[in-house]
């Protein structure tokens, strides 16, 4: 069993196009939620989202490569490039052959699929674009990362809705810890801003017409976001031997299924995932000082997550700081867990806890210390990052500060 550290991160999000700008925005409480561009107001019943603006594929990719990559796959590669650069990885044939790539995505390239079907169903064409399948497949992000760096090791994609990238990072952690791979690139990417997808979310009636106000009595639902985050996971000995500087240690992973309802969450499943992550980490509950919550700002999630945290931590729940950074980067579905894992890692590195933005007044059903309005300086030993998916599939990651 190896100890596993994070040695690099990469972020593409509405808050910024790299980890540094993302982290700076979170600590300065700058929300990226605003009116969505490119859709007519009459088309959709909600108007706000956390979209990435001013993005141009031509700024990052060769013209010959662009037609083969959907937006979500481009984000995945961009985040991976940053993470690899920060970690200072020098590729050798052996490292290429053994490194693992595990990505998460909820929707994959479904926007590309929609474009193809638009031709079929609306424009009366009898054929779709020939790249529709390779563009839309959910594993395209992992495949393009492998091609980008010539990585030939175990690579696959996890799709568990809003927990996708937490499951991906957890699997990568276990893989590196066990020695099955010396290093892994893990995270998630998502690009959910296309009309059919937005209409499907509208019909779920869980998107706020206001903004994302996690744990606040005034919360009225989630706000969609997009982007990607990738992390480099390495075994500690190898990382230290090559002179890498660990940002934090990843120490635990827990997962569970509610086995309850396809959309309504239960507290028992998330609580069990948190307990299992703690047990896997070898940390005592009292060593946890911060939880980056799933915190979607739906009525049900925040109430149930609070109950699950209280059930897991008992009296220590009153000493925990808990925040939802979705209030700033939106809910990036399959990328959410990875974005929040990066926030968790950096909060340990810097001794700064990101806040819950847009908070107005407390809800007795969400009576936790949710770090409203302002970031907080606090050196914590360990933290959890919670992700709970529709379908009742839960994934919790545990990180520990690396001295």
């Amino acid at each position: 069993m190896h100890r596993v550290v994070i040695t690099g991160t990469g972020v593409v999000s509405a808050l910024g196009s790299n980890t540094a700008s993302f982290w700076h925005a979170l600590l300065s409480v700058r929300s990226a939620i605003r009116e969505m561009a490119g859709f007519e107001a009459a088309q959709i019943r909600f108007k706000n989202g956390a979209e990435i603006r001013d993005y141009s594929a031509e700024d990052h990719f060769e013209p010959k490569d662009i037609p083969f990559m959907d937006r979500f796959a481009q984000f995945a590669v961009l985040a991976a490039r940053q993470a690899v650069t920060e970690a200072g990885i020098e590729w050798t044939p052996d490292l290429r052959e053994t490194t693992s790539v595990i990505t998460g995505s909820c929707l994959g390239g479904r926007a590309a699929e929609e474009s193809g079907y638009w031709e079929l169903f609306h424009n009366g064409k009898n054929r779709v674009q020939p790249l529709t399948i390779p563009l839309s497949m959910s594993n395209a992000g992992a495949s393009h990362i492998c091609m980008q760096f010539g990585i030939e090791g175990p690579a696959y994609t996890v799709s568990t809705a809003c927990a996708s990238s937490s499951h991906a990072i957890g699997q990568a952690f276990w893989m590196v810890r066990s020695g099955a791979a010396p290093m892994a690139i893990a995270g998630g990417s998502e690009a959910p801003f296309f009309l059919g997808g937005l209409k499907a979310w509208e019909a779920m009636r869980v998107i706020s017409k206001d903004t994302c106000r996690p744990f606040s009595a005034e919360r009225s639902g989630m706000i969609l976001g997009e982007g990607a985050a990738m992390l480099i996971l390495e075994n500690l000995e190898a990382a230290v031997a090559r002179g890498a500087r660990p940002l934090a240690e990843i120490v635990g992973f827990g997962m569970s299924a509610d086995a309850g309802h396809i959309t309504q969450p239960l507290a028992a499943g998330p609580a069990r995932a948190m307990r299992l992550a703690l047990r896997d980490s070898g940390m005592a509950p009292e060593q946890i000082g911060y939880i980056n919550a799933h915190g979607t700002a739906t009525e049900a999630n925040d109430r149930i997550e609070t109950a699950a945290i209280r059930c897991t931590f008992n009296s220590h729940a009153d000493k925990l700081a808990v925040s939802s950074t979705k209030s700033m980067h939106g809910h990036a579905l399959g990328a959410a867990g990875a974005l929040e894992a990066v926030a968790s890692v950096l909060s340990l590195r810097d001794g700064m806890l990101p806040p819950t933005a847009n908070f107005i007044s407390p809800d007795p059903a969400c009576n936790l210390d949710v770090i409203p309005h302002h970031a907080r300086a606090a050196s914590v030993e360990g933290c959890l990052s919670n992700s709970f998916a529709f379908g009742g599939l839960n994934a919790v990651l545990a990180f520990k500060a690396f001295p």
Partner: protein
Amino acid sequence: MNQTIQERVLKVIATSKRVPLETVQPDSSFEALNIDSLDRLNILFDLESEFEIEIDDEQAKQVKNIHEMIEGVTLLVQAKSAPSSVK
């Protein structure tokens, strides 16, 4: 006309939930009919199609039983047919 709306609402609920029409009464509670949050989404969607109306999320959240659902639909149908109404 209200009677007709009521009958149509009850039929939409019975069809959506796949239960016999006679089991759905105006004074039935959602709990008694085993209607959960996802069933409600389906019913709201079917009601919007049946009456060609748009039911606001916040208004929908206030509805606690089938009687209120019938009342809400009736108001929306009346607003739609009123000559001065603006959609």
